[in-house]
């Protein structure tokens, strides 16, 4: 019966690979997929349909390192009255009544942030569009990370735009 031995061996082999593929899928599902948010906030509605400017909500993007996420109060400047019949907006109003801060899940994060100097301010002032780095957020219902935010990505843009590629520009 020796000649049938390859069959269980192959079964094992393919099973291992199926498991590896599914494990990769699980890793994607847990760590790489765009995170769910406490409220189904949609940029497509607010930028695309309502026509708001990015800076109306991300106020500090041209003033500081971080773009900043708007407070519940900013949302309520409209949603005290607007679309109050929608369940997601009622959830929002719940946060407001409890005076509870919204814990938005971060989507973009440079992996080794401590060793990298990155600031929104200088890039926005250099006239770079949000979409060059974040993709077309105005078409996203749920924000997802479009660029890798890896060093190669930063450097290739710096090269093409004649910005500094000296190590010390970004690493201090």
């Amino acid at each position, binding site marked *: 019966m020796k000649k049938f031995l390859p069959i269980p061996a192959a079964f094992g082999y*393919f099973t291992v690979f199926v498991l590896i593929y599914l494990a990769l899928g699980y890793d994607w599902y847990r760590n790489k997929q765009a995170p769910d948010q406490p409220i189904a906030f949609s940029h497509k509605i607010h930028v695309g349909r309502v026509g708001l400017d990015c800076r109306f909500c991300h106020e500090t993007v041209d003033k500081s390192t971080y773009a900043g996420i708007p407070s519940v109060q900013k949302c309520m*400047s409209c949603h005290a009255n607007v679309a109050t019949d929608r369940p997601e907006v009622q959830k929002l109003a719940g946060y407001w009544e409890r005076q509870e801060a919204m814990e938005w899940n971060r989507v973009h994060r440079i992996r080794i942030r401590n060793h990298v100097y990155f600031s929104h301010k200088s890039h926005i002032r250099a006239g770079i569009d949000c979409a060059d780095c974040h993709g077309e957020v105005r078409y996203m219902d749920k924000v997802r990370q479009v660029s*890798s935010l890896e060093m190669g990505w930063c450097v290739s843009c710096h090269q093409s735009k004649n910005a500094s590629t000296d190590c010390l520009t970004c690493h201090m």
Partner: protein
Amino acid sequence: MEFFSQYVIPPTRGQLELLRYLLVLTYAIHLPFVGMVIGATLLSLAFNARDRDIANPTFARMSKDLMDMVLPNRVVVLVFGVLPLPALWMIYGQWLSKSTVSMFTLLPIGALVVALSFVPLMAYRSSLDPAGRNSQVNFGLGGIGLATLLLGMYILIGAVVRFQDPERWHLAHDGFRWLLSFNVIWKFGHLLLSGLAITGCGILFFFFNWSGREPIRDAKYAQFMKNFGASVLLATVILIPVIGFFYLITTPTIALSGAVYVLAAATLVILFLVFLLAYGAILSPRPRFGARAFILVLAVFLLTGVGDQLTLVNATQEHSAALLTEADEIKAQIELEREAHRAASQVVDVARGEEVFKTVCMTCHRMDERLVGPPLKTVLPKYAGNVDGLISFIQKPEKVNPEYPPMPAPGLPLADIKSVAAYLLGEVDDAGTSTESPQH
């Protein structure tokens, strides 16, 4: 991109769906065929060379039969090998119109090289002599044909695989950096292996099961052929999961989704079945299982094509949304013009205006109080005698006062906007002339 963006109307949702199906269909026709041509030519050349070393008639015959199998006539080459190429070009051109990637560099070059490669390949096929008097010359023809086909396919695959990596679309003008990516290399390896696998099945299927062929009478030759086909199949089926793994881990995150992994895992299940068939064919004294293995490997090609289509869908999600929005805008523009014609003949209806005000504007406005927007009594006076100004503001509000959030466009038909404007201006006029303020 100029050509496509100028002459291609942005596709609607239905058309985008259709493009996806067409893409899978085109892959499913083209890739198995090209894979088989690559596999068969490679093996044919190997047998050809062996034959000239040791003059073995089995080898010479095998060399010829393999080429006859994959390139039986011009029509097959045209339908399976050449026609899908312009189709691919059109599909990607539509799908990625308005993007920054160029459809005029790598994709058409690769397609052209692939199409041209069939000329020396066909010449090689006709020059082969089953009796084994092959020369350096025809070997050279086959070699050139194969090399050209491989080069063309590498460029073609490189061009389309990189579409799923928008972060690097800016490399489009730099062919070498565009093509030198592990993701492309693994995909190409995957095609080579799948090509050899389907050639192995092809040997089992077309030589033995195909009713259109005359049966092979030489038992020894048949035995050799069967074992050879099955062994090629067995070896490639074992290697494909490994190369598929490397392809998956080099695919950009943006192109991935749960379904991509599940599809990839499903192909492994099919490959295991193919393994069983191939092994059964080796054990069995008679040639068997050719048809079933062939169909299963075709299914692997199909699932892989669906997966490739899916990664592109994932990677171009926002791009497609932009296209759809543009198509919607064109439609809305046409609608608006029609509306304007109708509105021109319509009387402005103040009662209708009041209704619109109460149902739409009152969410954010009162006459005397600040709500989301300013109390209208304070802002309307500046529009007195300027109905058109008010109408155009309501149609397309602009940022006015920094104390308030911007007003969203209410998206009303023009007739309603005209009515509500007339109603509002009437209200402030009343308020100005009468002493009591209106009740709302």
